[in-house]
């Protein structure tokens, strides 16, 4: 029982990271109807941004590890990723917006491969150890709580889950309560009608890319706090799993992406814990194939009729 709970906690922490990345996939799909293959690599860039900020600019980001330093690194890395996301969209995807989808898809694969290989070229292919921006420790659970006290919960896990929940609520606020969020929803409903109503589609798409990339950057930092080893190819696997999460929840659906991320994290932890870590990746892809066969719209997605 304790072991099962422990796996759930580990899965929840990992799943939060997938959820943050999956949100970027789902939001971009919502406004542009295409899958931004390069999104996983923006997550990798977030981790490396954090690495260079904390390692090379210690005087700017408060020398001692702690909450202030973590927050400063997190916010700066998110900003950097947002800018990268906007630039990628502007340079590579915007000129192709009226072209066939396949062209955009190939470009996205090209951008992804470029970021991975340029990353290996610039950062070096060997894994780097992420600097300690907060001192990780196990959180004591009082004996009086009974059996639950046998669990190991680390501070980093609490931070990961806490920051994720905060970001999810912030995102919910932006999408539902602000004018920009309203424009995003209008665009995903019908781009032509939205532009007729005075929505500047280009600005909204840029904003969406920025928002999604910032969340991916946050995921990169949070993941590095938990597992302080980063390399230029870390975005490939995480990106694919986050994509599976977005599809599982129903691509284009924001709460669905969060739910899917957590579910994928839990499935992965349980498979690794009870079956074999070797089958972790295969099972996640198996879930994707199953979902696409049984319910291609995902758990929360609504079906969309294609009009001719």
């Amino acid at each position, binding site marked *: 029982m304790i072991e099962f709970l422990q796996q759930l906690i580990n899965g929840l922490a990992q799943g939060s990271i997938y959820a943050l990345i999956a949100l970027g996939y789902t939001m971009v799909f919502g406004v542009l109807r295409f899958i931004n293959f390069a999104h996983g690599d923006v997550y990798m860039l977030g981790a490396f941004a954090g690495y260079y900020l904390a390692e090379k600019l210690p005087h700017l980001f408060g020398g001692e590890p702690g909450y202030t330093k973590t927050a400063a690194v997190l916010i700066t890395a998110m900003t950097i990723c947002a800018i990268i996301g906007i630039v990628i969209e502007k340079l590579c995807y915007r000129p192709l917006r009226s*072209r066939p989808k396949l062209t*955009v898809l190939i470009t996205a*694969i*090209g951008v992804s491969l470029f970021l991975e290989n340029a990353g290996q*070229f610039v950062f070096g292919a060997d894994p780097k150890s992420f600097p300690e921006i907060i001192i990780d420790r196990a959180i004591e659970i009082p004996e009086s709580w009974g059996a639950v006290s046998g669990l190991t919960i680390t501070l980093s896990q609490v931070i990961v889950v806490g920051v994720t929940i905060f970001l999810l609520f912030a995102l919910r606020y932006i999408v539902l309560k602000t004018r920009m969020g309203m424009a995003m929803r209008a665009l995903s409903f019908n781009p032509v009608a939205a532009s007729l109503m005075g929505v500047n589609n280009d600005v909204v798409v840029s904003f969406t890319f920025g928002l999604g990339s910032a969340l991916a950057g946050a995921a990169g930092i949070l993941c590095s706090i938990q597992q302080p080893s980063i390399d230029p190819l870390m975005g490939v696997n995480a990106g*694919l799993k986050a994509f599976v999460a977005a599809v599982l929840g129903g691509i284009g659906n924001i709460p669905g992406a969060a739910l899917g991320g957590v579910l994928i994290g839990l499935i992965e932890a349980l498979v690794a814990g009870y079956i074999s870590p070797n*089958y972790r*990746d295969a099972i996640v892809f198996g879930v994707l*194939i199953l979902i696409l066969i049984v319910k291609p719209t995902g758990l929360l997605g609504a079906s969309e009729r294609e009009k001719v």
Partner: protein
Amino acid sequence: MNPRPQLILLGVLIAGLVASHFLGGGAEPHIPALNSYYYDILIGIGINVILAAGLNLVNGYTGQFSLGHAGFMAVGAYASSWLSLTFGYALGSGNVATTTAFLIALLIGGGVAALVGLTVGIPSLRLRGDYLAIVTLGFNEIIKGVIQNCEPLGAQRGLGGMVQHTTVFWVVAFAALTVYTVVSLVDSTYGRGFLAVRDDEIAAEAMGINTTKYKVLAFVIGAFFAGIAGGLYAHFKQFVHPEGFNFLRSVDIVVMVILGGMGSTLGVCFAAVLLTILPELLRYVSKVEALPDWLQHIAENRMILYSLLLIVLMLTRPQGLFGGLTFGKKERRV
């Protein structure tokens, strides 16, 4: 079609036979100038032509986007190697017997790959574009994962010890056969079906075309030829390893198809030749001392150039470098 493709096929086969006679096989070619390095590249070109022409049927003519071609190559390579290693001597020894055994292993390897293609294709080809790309990529990883955990296939260690049967003749023959099949197929009723699915799936369906059937057919044929290419590769290198059939190998083949121009068989063949030679040229460039350091490093990492090539090509010339080239009469382009 003028000139007739059958005659071209025959001509290429004869040329292959002649070339094979002069070049010989294995590590000791008959012409001293052609050392084993160039021989290696020559075989690599043939194998890549088979892979790219097969994938072009799926990605180019049928308009689907498969990103897992290396997975089918792996299936063919492992299936034929396993057959060769297990039953290789069952037909006895001697030139004719071993060659027959090799061909049977190769064809069964292709058949198994086609069968896997069928099982992968039926569920995933109900999906479109982006999804299909990810699902085929996922299947590539799953196939690799299964091989890595399969003890009789050598698991993580790889599988080796096959006799080197692949010669220039067999590679040229199968490359010619692949191109011939693809060209004839596209020119037939089936080809009209493929093109209709690519141009407008809904309209094709409204015209009574069973789109799933055509998509699966293209996929299975592509997988079959990938399996053959895998078998040829395995019987040339005499060693196969799961990591040799990873996602990046699939990307290599996709880049050939896109660079050559999706839906142009001749262009894709050119691109396959070009992209097999390019890494070797880059290796040469990276050793030129006169160039600045960073240029040498970039030349070493060909994937940076490939990815940039993809992006720039899509932005400026989405029909590919050789998009307009055709065999004989005009083929239809994207």
